[in-house]
């Protein structure tokens, strides 16, 4: 589904990603861990098309197409979804309005008609229940005055409704309380399917207890310094990152 080859990315003349290689197939769950400032969010942004970065080397293909050449809204319509580490507020625009506009633009892209108002409401309310949210959130302005955890849950609500193919979750777990983490994880698990892949950026093993990854990668200083199975996360929990970075320096 996604193939990242020797990806180098800079901001200004500061190199941030320094040769990332990653293969992700449909149905897989990949966890990306790593110290603060190592480039995890940068990778999420690059995949979703945020401006302000320069790709200096490498390529990314998504479903056989050159991902980096697609405008961000086309990537979204083709199924790339980013649950933001810091979701923005949009005063004046209700959550439900945004959801409908987003869903319709995606449907239109796939040659489908606009969603029927009743069907839409049924769909949305179902997902709201799944994530144990209050329906009132639908009519509030997007993220405005939401608590940190509410914002994160709102991201997952959007994901559940838009049903993307490649779901990138940037630290969705941080800010969630213990119960919320469980609910959100169940929401994510309900979306698991053989034609959908997940990239989960996280600092904590806790999330991975709920959503078991197929692969764990450690990103340090702009490179993937180690990859392994779910057990790697446990090892990291115990030892931290320093032993890997030392390796990296030696390599």
């Amino acid at each position: 589904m996604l193939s990242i080859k020797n990806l180098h990315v800079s901001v200004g003349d500061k190199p941030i990603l320094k040769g990332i290689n990653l293969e992700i197939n449909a149905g897989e769950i990949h966890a990306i861990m790593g110290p603060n400032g190592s480039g995890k969010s940068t990778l999420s942004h690059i995949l979703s098309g945020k401006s302000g970065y320069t790709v200096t080397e490498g390529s990314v293909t998504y479903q056989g197409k050159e991902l980096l050449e697609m405008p961000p809204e086309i990537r979204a319509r083709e199924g790339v979804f980013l649950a933001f580490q810091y979701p923005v507020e949009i005063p004046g625009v209700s959550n439900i309005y945004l959801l409908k506009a987003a869903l319709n633009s995606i449907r239109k892209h796939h040659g489908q008609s606009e969603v029927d108002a009743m069907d839409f409401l049924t769909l949305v309310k179902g997902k709201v229940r799944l994530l144990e949210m209050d329906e009132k959130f639908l009519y509030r302005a997007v993220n405005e005055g939401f608590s940190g955890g509410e914002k994160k849950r709102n991201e997952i609500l959007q994901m559940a409704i838009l049903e993307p193919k490649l779901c990138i979750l940037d630290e969705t777990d941080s800010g969630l309380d213990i119960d919320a983490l469980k609910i959100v994880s169940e929401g994510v698990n309900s979306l698991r399917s053989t034609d959908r892949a997940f990239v989960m950026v996280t600092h904590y093993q806790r999330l991975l207890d709920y959503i078991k990854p197929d692969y764990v990668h450690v990103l340090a200083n702009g490179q993937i310094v180690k990859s392994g199975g779910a057990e790697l996360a446990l090892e990291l929990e115990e030892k931290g990152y320093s032993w890997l970075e030392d390796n990296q320096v030696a390599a």
Partner: protein
Amino acid sequence: MSASAQEVNNLINQEYKQGFVTELETNTFPPGLDESVIHKLSKIKNEPEFMLEYRLKAFRHWQTMKSPKWAFVDFEPIDYQSISYYSAPKRKEDGPKSLDEIDPQVLEAYKKLGIPLDEQERLAGVAVDAVFDSVSVATTFKGKLKDVGVIFCPISEALREHPELVKQYLGSVVPHTDNYFAALNAAVFTDGSFVYIPKGVRCPMELSTYFRINAANTGQFERTLIIADEGSHVSYLEGCTAPMRDENQLHAAVVELVAMKDAVIKYSTVQNWYPGDKNGLGGIYNFVTKRADCRGDNSKVSWTQVETGSAITWKYPSCVLTGDNAVGEFYSVALTNNYQQADTGTKMIHIGKNTRSTIVSKGISAGKAQNTYRGLVKVLKSAENARNYTQCDSLLVGDKCGAHTFPYIEVKQPSAQVEHEATTSKISEDQLFFCQQRGLSAEDAVSMIVNGFCKEVFKELPMEFAVEAQALLGLSLEGSVG
């Protein structure tokens, strides 16, 4: 946002959809302004003597005045001698008696603007007065309105048929000495709508006027007068468009509203005059004086405006709250893009006891545009327990535009409560990216955010207008991101 830059460029070059010119045989005065022009104008309109005198008085006063400089707008001095003060489609002696007598080209023009004048085709429930350059060419549903005693006709016709009413109220809210453009208008106004709602009548349909500038090198000087007698209700809408031309054209209107005891007037505007091209060439100078006198106790006037057009807008729809418990409201969306300039706001003058006013202003600035809110809340000594609430929000799209707020507050009555809230925000790159990441184009995202920003004002508009206003806003913002 380089990915969408090309898209944006394409949109920027889209045409102003109402920018066409109708080729017509017209009766047009040569350019120039002196007393003989005013005599000629009054004669061609077959006006009563008092009107000619009023015009001449206004003209003489105007000549002693100077063009105002205080507004936050910038333009070359206007050469008033280069403007023609009258232009009308050629027609039979007393004007058309039925639609068959109107120049088919004019009918076609209105059709193209989405305002078919044929009553069968009209939305039921909206009567239209169509003003084309200097004359009203048609007024629909006049008969039906007359049945309930409502007078809705061109002001030129009212001057002939109801001279006493016009004489009593014309200039009673905006005197001919009020300001430079009001004085000019009093001297040379050509047409506009006249509305009289008798005591206790709730007008059975929305009334509307559609102003169209067509001729080149002319000014449009419209005059509207609405009188709502005791206990009556009326909702009135106005819309405006003009062809695309490289020269600026002047539109200097005066609108006067009078609300007697317990009367309610709701006045809504969707202003879409040609704004000029993306380099700031051409466009309408929209210099307008609009004022309501809430003369009777418990009267209420509500102004709602959506201003998206014009190269320059200079306009302050105001309420003089004379009667006790009178209510004044002003809801405004003013959008400027490219090189447009708007200096707009309101004045709320509290005179009666327990008078209340609400001001909600939403200014949106994109491109290299300048958008200014200027508002005055004045509470006189007599206005015990007066209350005002003002909310004034500015939204910037991009970083080359400007928003300015000048609230003036003068309170002479200690029991008055005056509240003012103001915010300025900017559509951020992060907001746009977030929306794009959810599948929306940058244009749609801006339009969605702007519409959200204006929601409080749009909900004040009559249904059909709200839809039109939203669409217009989207159109006017095209090319604003990149």
